[in-house]
């Protein structure tokens, strides 16, 4: 039984990592296209609130998730407009998106605070009654979607022509423009994808993780997802390790509170944030820095020649 409990913990952790995984996979694509979108937190909150509202009003899980993704994508296009068309500073525009998203989500969800939902049903596994291990594999559809997205992004970036163009745009927008590729179009699409994934990640929080809505419920996960992209060196499959690690730190906090240790709970709550810093420090060593695949044009504004 001991083995099963370890496996159970591992799978709980994996499930808890889904919102990070979705948001980070989206942001990874955005950054590979050379755009730094710091508005993840805002887009996740928008996705969380819209997903929740649509679920309560329509009753359909699918429509709720779809709506969350669409809102995330639409909302991200505000950022895209400022950053791409108006050539605004990406850091400032991303912060604006975070602040605006937090405010909008609070206003939209004001009437839904305290409403509770049954959690999203899990996908049944055939034969789960035969062996308890198989039963552990029952998870919400969004969990499997998260894994699928990572695989899909990996394939898209490194095995498709469109992914090659996207990486090219992120490496040198001037060169891509000179070869006739539409830098702004590629980036706008990438940002929309990132927004959709962030929206889904937010929806996971409000529909699966803690099926209720509260203001600021992302609690900095958008920012941690940003750090995860750095951690993954802009390679999708490495996100799996990163998200798993961070989710396990979060889970540790919950377990530790259960053990009523002498350490105050606030210090356990600090762990994910401190771990983020620790990881960033670790990766900043010269050895790892040389192995990073940071897109060369990341964060730079593209102004086409007139």
């Amino acid at each position, binding site marked *: 039984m001991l083995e099963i409990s370890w496996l159970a913990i591992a799978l709980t952790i994996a499930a808890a990592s889904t919102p990070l995984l979705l948001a980070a996979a989206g942001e990874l694509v955005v950054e590979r296209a050379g755009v730094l979108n710091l508005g993840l937190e805002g887009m996740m909150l928008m996705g969380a609130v819209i997903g929740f509202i649509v679920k309560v009003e329509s009753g359909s899980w699918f429509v709720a998730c779809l709506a969350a993704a669409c809102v995330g994508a639409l909302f991200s296009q505000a950022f895209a407009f400022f950053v791409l068309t108006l050539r605004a500073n990406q850091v400032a525009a991303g912060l604006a998106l975070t602040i605006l998203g937090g405010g909008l989500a609070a206003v939209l969800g004001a009437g839904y605070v305290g409403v509770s939902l049954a959690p999203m049903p899990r996908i049944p596994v055939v034969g789960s009654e035969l062996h308890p291990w198989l039963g552990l594999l029952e998870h919400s559809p969004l969990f499997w979607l998260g894994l699928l997205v990572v695989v899909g992004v990996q394939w898209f970036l490194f095995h498709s022509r469109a992914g090659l163009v996207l990486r090219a745009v992120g490496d040198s927008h001037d060169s891509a423009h000179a070869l006739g590729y539409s830098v702004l179009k590629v980036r706008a699409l990438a940002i929309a994808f990132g927004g959709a994934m962030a929206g889904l990640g937010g929806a996971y929080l409000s529909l699966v993780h803690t099926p209720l809505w509260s203001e600021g419920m992302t609690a900095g996960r958008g920012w941690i997802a940003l750090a995860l992209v750095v951690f993954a060196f802009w390679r999708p499959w490495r996100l799996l390790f990163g998200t798993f690690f961070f989710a396990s730190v979060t889970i540790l906090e919950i377990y530790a509170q259960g053990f009523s240790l002498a350490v105050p709970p606030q210090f356990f709550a600090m762990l994910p944030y401190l771990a983020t810093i620790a990881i960033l420090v670790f990766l900043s060593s010269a050895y790892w820095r040389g192995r990073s695949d940071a897109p*060369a044009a990341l964060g730079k504004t593209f102004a086409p020649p007139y």
Partner: protein
Amino acid sequence: MEVCGCVFVTCACFMATFDVSPLLEIRAISKRFGDLTANDAISLTLRRGEIHALIGENGAGKSTLMQILYGRITPDAGEILLEGKPLAAGTAAARAAGITMVFQQFVLFEALTGLENLRLGLGNGMKPRALRDKALAFAERYGFWVELDRRVSELSAGEHQRLEVLRCIMQEPKVLIMDEPTSVLTPQEADGLFETIRLLARNGTGIVYISHKLREIRALCERATVLRRGRVVARPDPQKTELDAMARAMLGDDAVALADLAETEDKATGTLSAVPSVPTMPSVLPPRETTRLFVEGLTLPSVHRQGVGLSDISFSVAAGEIFGIAGIAGNGQNTLLEALTGERLLPHGQEQAIRLQGRAVGQLGVLARRRLGLATVPEDRHGHGAVGDLTLKENILLTSTHVTHGEDALVRRFACSGGWLRLRRAGMVAEQVLARFAIQGAEARGPDTLARKLSGGNLQRFIVGRGLLHAPDLLLVLQPTWGVDAHAAARIHQALREAAERGAGVLLISQDLDELLALSHRIAVLARGQLSRPFICADFKDSPAGKSELRHALGLLMTGLGGTSTNPDREKVL
């Protein structure tokens, strides 16, 4: 393969003889940028298989015209016909119609492999394996070889060029535009490129060749169009026209002024030394009494993983001497510059490797070396030598903090050493520099002009002027006339000569052999981080044959084939 090529060539010749309508017609193209007329009703025709030279100074409008042709810039007026049909707007349309361009600054993706770069350059969805075969076939047909599986950032400048050319010719273009393609090539590599270009032309491609190197144009082109200040001023036959006449057409009124300038700087010859194609060499080696800079056994890795570091470099610069370091960019020039200026400090125990005025400075920072009399003119005007968004008087403060020596009292006292700025005095000093170097473009606001409002040549003159403010004992100059008009280049060369005459040591690092040959007393070559032994230019002065012998020897060293290279086979020449 050879048979194939022959048949191909014959067919193309056949077509060329029978089809007399022009391949490309540019009709009265105009483009204005605000007050500046970049192109004023320019017309040009290109025949199949023709290599057409487009000549002009920096800022004459060549690049604008070609960017319009390539669809990157939309013209204000005029039209372009390709095979009689008007060309639609946009780069994608131009490329689809068969126009490609080899850019002066390579259009490559550093993080991607050579093959991926080729895939991006070819619009169709060809499978990578088929593409590789096609690339190898083309490379073989045109007689050169490129690395396809390594990242572009790991390749040399020559390989970048070949990759870029390969990508263009694989599209089997009708029109190929080449913008200063030899600026990063050694003379030998350039010869290889010329062979490729001729072969392309024989196959029927029309080639527009942009350059200001008249000698190359003479070797390569059948017809030429000369631009000056956005207008067509002459259409000489490069095979029949004297170089001097072409230069005069290119420079116009400036030629007279330049001749005056040249006379003052070189009375002995009286030639137009400012025109890069007609270099004069310094005749005597100055006496080596005082050593300004002494470098011995300098070894330093590059900060970038793929960058070229320095291995065991030794040389010295005497007072009154201009010491030239030739070499293609990317062979350790940046590392050398950073090590010499103090932007990078040498590791402990190596401080003796660089001695300035007899003092070991390997561990001293920028400010300390500046106090010892070092002044620097870096390659990059925007963002290194000057900050575009700051005013000229603020820019003049960049190299003046903590320095207290200079020709006059004002210069000695305007700089600050922390605390508050002395902006009014800085303005007066900036005013002096503007006047002394006849810098244009700052008339309205004087020292309050933003640096980016100056043209490249004027800003470079300002930076050189600033470098000379504190009467430096050692002047470190990297590519001082890159992208600068002839007038400014002449001024800058004159300033360097004057600095040397006054007793400063001048270290000139450049990839322009003409410039080096015109100025330097001694020249060494930096290739793959290693420095060759210096050539004394006066030894080659006597005959024209000597000069070309020196040029050839330097070129070989730049390619890395001159004996210093550890593995000469690695780099195949074009």
